């Protein structure tokens, strides 16, 4: 059984962004694993552990089962995104795939196509799947609910459409069904308006977009980091993966043509006095300047 986790290499939210060449950012800043993807990796690791523990009744021993459940971190990005794939492996992914691109930014249509191609290629690899020949497709693909840099909120849905798998996003609770080994169903809850929850029953294979609060992300220990260094990251290139499929979407695309720093031109004014004077002044601002009362 293969569990994939799609991860993205994004600028640290605290980094200072500098615009370069009209629509690029200066990339000499800290990049890291997208925070929402940490929940995705953690949930994949939790699922693997859970399945191994509860699979004891099966004829296979735990060790053998462990080999049969594999977590693969996949990322699309420039060569430095290898660091983010490595971070996912430190958290518990068994191996990684990096789809290397020249441009840092790819739109979500291209990204989803490339992720699909890479995942399919990995699953058609007979050596990796020889134990269970029917498992030619991924069981679950985890992603974060959105990336903090682009905030496109859509790649997981496109990936689902390309695979024809059901998709749920902003998942805050995930559990295999009690009869999972028979029905291959999972029960998930998504966060909705006003803190509500929608509960879905989904048959695998499926795509799960992890939301905040799904779990507490794993913090890798030093031995985890050392172990992850030895694991394989396979490098693919975007152009090889998408050969022949570039032009079949009728020019549908999004392209960043201009990027400007969002200027904050606020000059703070102090409001002084006793509580009642300050309150009067604030109410005056609400009334006269903001016109909200």
């Amino acid at each position, binding site marked *: 059984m293969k569990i994939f986790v799609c991860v993205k290499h994004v600028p640290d*939210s605290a980094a200072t962004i500098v615009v370069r060449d009209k629509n690029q950012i200066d990339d000499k800043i800290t990049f890291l694993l997208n925070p929402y993807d940490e929940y995705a990796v953690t949930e994949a690791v939790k699922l693997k552990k859970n399945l191994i523990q509860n699979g004891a009744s099966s004829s296979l021993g735990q060790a053998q089962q462990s080999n049969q459940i594999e977590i693969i971190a996949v990322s699309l990005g420039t060569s430095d995104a290898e660091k983010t794939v490595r971070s996912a492996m430190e958290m518990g992914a068994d191996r990684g795939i990096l789809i290397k691109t020249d441009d840092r930014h790819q739109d979500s249509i291209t990204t989803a196509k490339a992720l699909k191609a890479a995942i399919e290629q990995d699953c058609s690899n007979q050596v990796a799947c020889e134990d269970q020949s029917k498992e030619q497709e991924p069981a679950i693909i985890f992603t974060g609910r959105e990336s903090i840099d682009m905030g496109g909120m*859509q790649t997981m849905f496109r990936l*689902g459409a390309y695979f024809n798998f059901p998709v749920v996003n902003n998942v805050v609770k995930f559990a295999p069904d009690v009869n999972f080994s028979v029905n291959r169903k999972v029960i998930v809850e998504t966060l909705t*308006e006003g*803190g509500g929850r929608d*509960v879905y029953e989904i048959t695998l294979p499926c795509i799960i977009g992890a939301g905040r609060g799904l779990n507490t992300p794993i913090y890798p220990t030093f031995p985890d980091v050392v172990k992850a260094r030895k694991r394989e990251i396979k490098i693919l290139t975007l152009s090889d993966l998408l050969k022949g499929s570039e032009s079949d979407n009728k020019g549908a695309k999004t392209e*960043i*043509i201009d990027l400007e720093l*969002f200027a904050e031109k606020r000059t703070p004014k102090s409001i002084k006095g006793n509580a009642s004077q300050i*309150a009067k002044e604030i109410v005056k601002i609400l009334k006269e300047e903001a016109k909200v009362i």
Partner: protein
Amino acid sequence: MKKTAVIIETKDGVIKEANYGMITCAAKDNNSELYAFIINEEVEPFKAHLKKHGIDKIVDISIPIDSDNHENQRSYEKSFNPILWSDALTQALTTYEISSLFALTTPIGKELLPRIAAQLEAPLVMDCLDVVKNSDNSCNDNNVCNSNNSSYLNSDFHLAKTSLYSGKTIATVKVTGDIRLFGIRPNAIEPSIKLSISKPKIENQDNQDQDQQGSFNIESSIIIEKFIAKNRYAQKSKIKLIESKKGDSSGNDLVAADVIISGGRAMKNSENFKILQDCADAIENLGVSSTAVGASRVAVDLGWVPYRMQVGQTGEKVNPKVYIACGVSGSIQHFAGMKMSKIIIAINENINAAIMSNCNYFVEADLFEIVPAITKELKR
């Protein structure tokens, strides 16, 4: 003629105020017919408001629960179901040959737009602050339109403005394709006409008055089309919505509020958030603005308030007219969610807090003295 559609969000049978800014944005394209897609609602009461904002046609969409074709005894899905709704909208989009679709970047919009975009393999930009069609002259102040991009002017495209990199930059995104989708950030665009205040009850009265005054004209000029979608998910689907646990719908939507009062670490506990709510209620009771209480991440992480109240990088991105930050330090991640606020008022005992040097007004004082004083002053 090209056709543009907007997905209308309602709450308790009333059109949410945030829709009007989105309609204003979609209506800027004069060369396009404007459709309003409304699912599972009584559309008659909406006609006047929608017409005034420039809607030409209403498509009244309903979704049968079963996929059989017993037209007569059919029952319909009432509550929101992302899977069924997005599929119904995709069908309507194709049937009416819509080339641009607008919706709000709300929890509902975040479910519907990406699902539709994925089904149609259409481009989508979420959380837009503005969208213009290339043929539109309204982008004069936008250097993208008249600078070195003359080659773009000959082709057909949209330009969407959205904030990227944790709110630190504003990007102009060129969007091409047969069908284009846009998620509009609530409150980002000022409606062309301010029809009424946000109180649903008063809006209803307002609505009735207008209907009485001009009902003949309005009814003759807005067309309502009924659209019954096919339910393609009813049987043995791989995904089933088995339960909807409703959230707390008593308060106002944070993302759509005109005024937000937020509390941070200095709130000390859950109970103290009541003083912020009291102040918000006092503003709300003056009847002009919708007001909501927000929080910083630390207040959520400490369990004082639910996650849905969090403003910031990993919470809600808000655009209020006034943001009052009470005991909020103002981390970069908090700013990522509220920096588009028109006026920021910071109340903090610590003059060195980051927010005090990046706001419009700051008060160096104890919030537990100032906030109740504001509430008292508002009630006077």
